[in-house]
């Protein structure tokens, strides 16, 4: 997509004549796609695992794909499949929503960027909100500002959703023929840790990261991924306290 804008430069055309719509959309969208690609190394194996688990739970493939579309969250999806397989779907709903409660915090963080969007776009953007798109979106808004940031976020989100559904489909279709992908489980935490590097550029953020990691690590034994939610809440609160002290 960037080639459209770049072509004007190659032929010597003044870039100011490039319509804003092209100039303002192509580069951020391409950046959004590019930034999302490394995440797929961790996301695709998880999607395939979910596809295999869906088949093993006796869930219809179409229902499995609908699940990928509407839940768009790996851990919660696995929890639901586990509940269905064990005849405890009601409890699995509660578990999955408890796991996803961090999305509430992500929504709070993205709200300032999306407040000027039309209602329909806000709904679409919220539907795509999950860990990789959250990180990708923040990077996009920082790099391109509000206008370009929207395209960056949306392009990355569409790529992630496409890869997610495709990988679930592969897991459904190929099932036990696929190799064990457990070793790739290391990739996602490492990538998240590496992403923290892009987030930590002042003391409040450093404190939020440090406290979040400590609480998340210490509380790992708690059920329903409560430790992660506690890490987010306590980490963000600690960072806010440091921020308040520095401001006063």
């Amino acid at each position: 997509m960037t080639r459209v804008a770049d072509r004007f430069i190659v032929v010597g055309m003044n870039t100011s004549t490039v319509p804003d719509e092209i100039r303002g959309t192509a580069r951020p969208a391409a950046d959004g796609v590019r930034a999302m690609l490394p995440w797929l190394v961790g996301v695709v194996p998880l999607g395939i695992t979910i596809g295999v688990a869906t088949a093993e739970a006796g869930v219809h493939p179409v229902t499995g794909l609908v699940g990928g579309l509407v839940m768009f969250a790996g851990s919660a999806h696995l929890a639901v499949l586990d509940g269905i397989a064990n005849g405890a779907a009601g409890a699995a709903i509660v578990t999955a929503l408890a796991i996803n409660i961090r999305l509430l915090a992500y929504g709070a963080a993205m709200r300032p960027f999306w407040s000027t969007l039309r209602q329909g776009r806000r709904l679409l953007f919220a539907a795509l909100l999950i860990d990789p798109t959250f990180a990708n979106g923040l990077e996009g808004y920082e790099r391109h500002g509000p206008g370009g940031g929207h395209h960056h976020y949306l392009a990355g989100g569409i790529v992630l959703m496409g890869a997610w559904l495709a990988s679930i489909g592969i897991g459904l279709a190929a099932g036990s023929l696929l190799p064990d992908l457990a070793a790739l489980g290391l990739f996602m935490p490492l990538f998240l840790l590496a992403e923290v590097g892009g987030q930590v550029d002042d003391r409040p953020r450093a404190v939020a990261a440090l406290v979040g990691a400590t609480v998340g690590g210490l509380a790992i034994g708690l059920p329903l991924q409560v430790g992660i939610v506690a890490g987010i809440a306590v980490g963000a609160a600690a960072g806010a306290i440091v921020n308040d002290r520095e401001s006063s």
Partner: protein
Amino acid sequence: MSPLAAILAVGLGSFALRYALVAFGDRALPPVLDRMSGLVAPAAFSAMAFAGLLHLRDVHDPAPVGDQTLVTGGVVTLVVARRRSAPAALAAGLIAAAAVDLASGGRSPV
């Protein structure tokens, strides 16, 4: 309850969680939430990363010594702190994981 009903219920609930605070638009949130919202990303990613690394340790390497995953996490943390580059940190982490794996005779998950 049918599988489809359970999946749709979680999908609907998850969307409500995603959208609940976005729906506020440009109306003011409670000040506490407003101050914390900008710090969600570093807190969330570090909490998930460390919980994920510790979980892998539990699954693949329950022994209290020879904790290869945490060594890898330490390398990534160091590179993040010094270089502030996600790709560099990731590459260093994967190299460290492979190196530790070789040193331990292939007992670690990577």
